[in-house]
């Protein structure tokens, strides 16, 4: 598990001492990494991470100082990601209505609703994780990408500790089921060129 930053260890930042610029400099890379895992491409991850800190700047007064600023930022990020997914779904449904009225054109170009995702993400397990239910997906990202402890994940997701463990367990089980449905074996993953596969099953 990745080492967590020092302030992640339940260090409480008083709201008066919350330096927005310093916080941005300190946490942008990690928030961007989580956004990249969630979005699947660095461009959307940039937007999502920057918007996270803009929300921090605008709503810093709402930060109660009861938790670490780190978990609070993750909460903002996940809320923004949820909003983006909802918008994307609505946009896709609208475009689907338009396409249904057009004559069938089985071209090879991707549709206008196709998400831009980088190949590294598509080949990774995170592409499958994105198909899981929201709660499981968020728990898996916070645990295995960001290395948060169970109680920190419970704090971010605002749910009991047992729920976090259940979501992680069932998220992994759902991931395994998805792979079985795709006819893949876990030993064939990943397919990164040049990567040492000796640790894989």
């Amino acid at each position, binding site marked *: 598990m990745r080492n967590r930053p020092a302030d992640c260890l339940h260090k409480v930042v008083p709201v008066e001492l919350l330096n927005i610029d310093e916080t*941005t*400099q300190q946490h942008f890379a990690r928030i961007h990494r989580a956004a990249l895992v969630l979005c699947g491409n660095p461009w959307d991850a940039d937007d999502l991470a920057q918007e996270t800190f803009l929300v921090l700047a605008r709503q810093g007064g709402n930060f109660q100082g009861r938790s670490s600023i780190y978990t609070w930022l993750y909460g903002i990020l996940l809320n923004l990601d949820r909003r983006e997914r909802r918008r994307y779904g609505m946009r896709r449904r609208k475009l689907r209505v338009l396409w249904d009225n057009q004559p069938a054109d089985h071209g090879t170009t991707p549709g206008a609703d196709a998400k831009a995702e980088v190949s590294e*993400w598509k080949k*990774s397990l995170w592409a499958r994780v994105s198909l899981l239910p929201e709660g499981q997906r968020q728990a898996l990202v916070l645990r295995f990408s960001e290395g948060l402890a169970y109680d920190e994940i419970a704090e971010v997701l605002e749910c009991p500790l047992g729920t976090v463990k259940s979501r992680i367990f069932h998220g992994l*089980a759902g991931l*395994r089921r998805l792979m079985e449905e795709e006819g893949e074996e876990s030993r064939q993953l990943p397919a990164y060129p040049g990567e040492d596969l000796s640790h894989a099953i």
Partner: protein
Amino acid sequence: MPFDPKLIHPDEPPVNGAGDLELPDDLSALAEQLTDDAAHLAASYPAELVPAELVPAVSQAAAVARPAIQSPARRGLRSRTGVALLTAAVAAGLAISLSVPLAVSQWPASSAGNPSVATAPPAAPEAEAPPAAPNQGDEPVPIKSAAPRSQTVLSLTELSGPELEALLDLQPVSASVSF
């Protein structure tokens, strides 16, 4: 044999004594793979540097939102002021609600000599009454006193709220009612 049911919850994740998840080997491998994939993605698309336009934008947004950021002491003062104002408003409302029935109960006695307040049918029926026959001589027509109207005095204490409000609406504008 004692009844000792063992509840089985197949949906509950396996947890060891320390409260940590005990994942099967295949799920542990998946978890490890997820961690490796995340590290690989982060290495492929690093974001070590904060975008140049973000810091001024964040500073500007923070400056705009700064009045909303208050210290706990100021928030406490503000909440106490709000509670005080709310208490004062409730007390004023209570005083008014208590004084209204009191004033209404004293109203018939004080307004007995003022029929324009307590009578339901005002002067309109009289104004519409047919004029007296002109051939009855030049005897002046006695002006009816207000005394007979006393039989139409309503007991305001028996009126409901809407009825009382309607009665007040029917009064002339010049009449002033104070509580």
